[in-house]
């Protein structure tokens, strides 16, 4: 039966079933089927017994119901302090209730839990920093997502995204050939402007193995070119892979498909084993970094919790290149307008990358023009589109509402330029401009750097 339905408990494993699901535009048939999807209560309860151990159980038990987490949540704040948006409430009425009822919950309950898990929380983990008992509700919602996924109650796009990773080892239907061809195309496009530009493929023992977000191949190939140009200018010994493992993201993580997470991260780590690079640098994406570098080693069952080689987020590489003079900024070209910076939850709160981005600002922005949002660094607010929220059509209205926090934070700075070294944040900020028209521009680091770094003579076109 499950083979014939679109909405079921089975993960997407084949290209064929992926295409069938993609054809169901907007997931209309998928969501219709979900209305009559049974809950496998026994499976639900046995999964909980196997995977819900002392950490989460203790969190649920000792929560003092004090409500101190309320103000930490952007959803609570933008929904006129709606008490049903208090993080602890969202956890209690979903995960807490499932455990209390020993898994005996029905279809209607699962629909409510799905909406809570994907439309009322972006797993930004901010609440965990405000609870005196050290309860991280983002972790619990993420765990809940896993339970919901295993029961088939997952938004259409998330099911597709997780399936993409299982089938293509990438978040979109981009094959290894597509990736390499796009890189070659970009090299051709730009080699006239940057003499000698090329993408080294499958080079063993390189200093840097570069990994990306599949969206770049599909929608923003210039991003690939810009990365190559900057590596080239910096004189880096770098490479990409023509096999699986070039994709760093993990929509499976947003979907709660832990098996899919493993498939994805294994492909990246395998590429590291193949190419034996000194280190890996990932593109300007927050969740890709978290999925591969922070959480990934655990899905790959690496006992030290670390990837096989040292891994850096793009901001770490940029800071290093600027610090060591591999990239030199022309002082006349520094940014001379008020500019602010978006901290990506997935690497600031989840990997401590807070000083490094400000160090980059100190090189790129004329003194006096950089202005931080408030709050910032590890206390920043989610852009409003994290955790997969950006991509879920069913919850578009809620997502647009969630952008208000970031909109107001940006407005308060007075800056008209927002630097967002994260795909998700970048998207959310683009969408908030589209939705609320506050007159801002937004950018990754790469295009800004290209405009201001000094090009070595040997790379300049001779005419």
């Amino acid at each position, binding site marked *: 039966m499950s083979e014939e339905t679109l909405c079921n408990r089975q993960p997407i494993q084949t290209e064929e079933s992926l295409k069938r699901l993609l054809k169901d535009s907007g997931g209309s048939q998928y969501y219709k089927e979900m209305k009559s999807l049974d809950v496998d209560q026994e499976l639900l309860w046995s999964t909980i017994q196997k*995977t819900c*151990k*002392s*950490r989460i*159980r*203790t*969190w649920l*038990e*000792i*929560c*003092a*119901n*004090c*409500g*101190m987490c*309320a*103000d*930490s949540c952007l959803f*609570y704040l933008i929904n006129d*302090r709606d*008490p*049903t948006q*208090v993080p*602890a*409430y969202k956890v*209690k009425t979903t995960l807490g209730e499932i455990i209390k009822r020993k898994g005996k919950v029905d279809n209607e309950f699962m629909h409510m839990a799905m909406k809570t898990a994907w439309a009322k929380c972006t797993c930004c983990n901010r609440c*965990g*920093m*405000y*609870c*005196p*008992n*050290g*309860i*991280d509700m983002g972790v619990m919602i993420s765990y809940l997502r896993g339970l919901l996924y295993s029961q088939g109650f997952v938004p259409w796009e998330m099911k597709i995204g997780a399936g993409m990773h299982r089938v293509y080892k990438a978040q979109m239907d981009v094959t290894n050939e597509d990736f390499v061809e796009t890189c070659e195309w970009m090299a051709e496009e730009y080699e006239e402007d940057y003499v000698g530009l090329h993408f080294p493929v499958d080079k063993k023992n390189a200093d840097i193995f570069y990994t990306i977000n599949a969206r770049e191949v599909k929608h923003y190939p210039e991003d690939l070119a810009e990365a190559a140009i900057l590596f080239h200018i910096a004189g880096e010994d770098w490479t990409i892979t023509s096999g699986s493992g070039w994709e760093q993201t993990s929509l499976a993580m947003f979907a709660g498909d832990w098996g899919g997470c493993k498939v994805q991260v294994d492909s990246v780590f395998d590429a590291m084993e193949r190419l034996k690079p000194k280190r890996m640098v990932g593109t300007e994406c927050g969740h890709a970094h978290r999925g591969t570098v*922070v*959480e990934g*080693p*655990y899905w790959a*069952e690496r*006992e*030290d*919790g*670390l990837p096989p080689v040292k891994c850096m987020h793009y901001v770490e590489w940029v800071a290093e290149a600027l610090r060591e003079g591999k990239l030199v900024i022309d002082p006349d070209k520094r940014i001379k307008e008020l500019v602010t910076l978006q901290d990506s939850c997935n690497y600031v*709160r*989840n*990997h*401590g*990358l*807070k*000083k*490094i981005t400000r160090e980059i600002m100190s090189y790129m922005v004329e003194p006096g023009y950089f202005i931080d949002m408030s*709050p910032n*660094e*590890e*206390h920043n607010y989610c852009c409003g589109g994290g955790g997969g929220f950006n991509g879920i059509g069913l919850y578009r209205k809620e997502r647009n509402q969630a952008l208000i926090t970031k909109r107001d934070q940006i407005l308060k700075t007075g800056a008209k330029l927002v630097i967002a070294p994260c795909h998700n944040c970048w998207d959310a900020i683009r969408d908030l401009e589209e939705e609320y028209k506050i007159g801002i521009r937004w950018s990754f680091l790469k295009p800004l750097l290209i405009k201001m770094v000094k090009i070595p003579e040997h790379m300049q076109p001779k005419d």
Partner: protein
Amino acid sequence: MQDILTGPMIWLSLSVFVFGMLARIILYIRGLDWKLDRVAYRAHPKAGMKGAARSILYWLLPFATRSWRKKPVMTIVFFTFHLGAILVPLFLLAHNMILKDMFCLSFPITLNMCVADLLSWGVIISGIILILRRISLPEARILTTTYDYFILFLALAPFVTGLLARYQVGDYQFWYTMHLLCGELFLLLAPFTKLSHIALFFMSRAQLGMDYGIKRGGLRDDTNLAW
């Protein structure tokens, strides 16, 4: 009745409390799972300990975390409540005399009467504010259950009865007996209720501290998490 309450019941309730809490701590640690929690506890003991210590320490100091600073009134009420709730039972002279009688041990420091009174009143007043807070703040009201009031009752009852006995309001013997009863009830139930947070607060905080200390950036040498 009083013989039982001042004799075997003290033994029993203290044993249940101490061994019960120890059991909760051991079970908590045994239930940690590096793969499920996605924290490599064993691989990075030093970073883990540092993260745990910071996570506990910052939250034990009033206004040391952003969360405490954002809620100054709650912070004052919270710390007044917990300060008295910890210091008075442990260091009250009368309690220490019992300890000395029964176990031949006592803490070298005891509270002077005036300080003990002040701390006890602090517990009661802040306890009342905590109850009012639960009733008046929508974000707390929606979470609060009867069970939360029961926990507050368990915590406050020994203080209310203790003060009534101390000021000899009405029948001293009656309040003294009630105080023993309430205190022992607290000790007996603590390991099995939300009061287990007396021990599990440290466990949960240490765990999240290790999470940050090991996985979420703690291994970097350029920054420390600002709680």
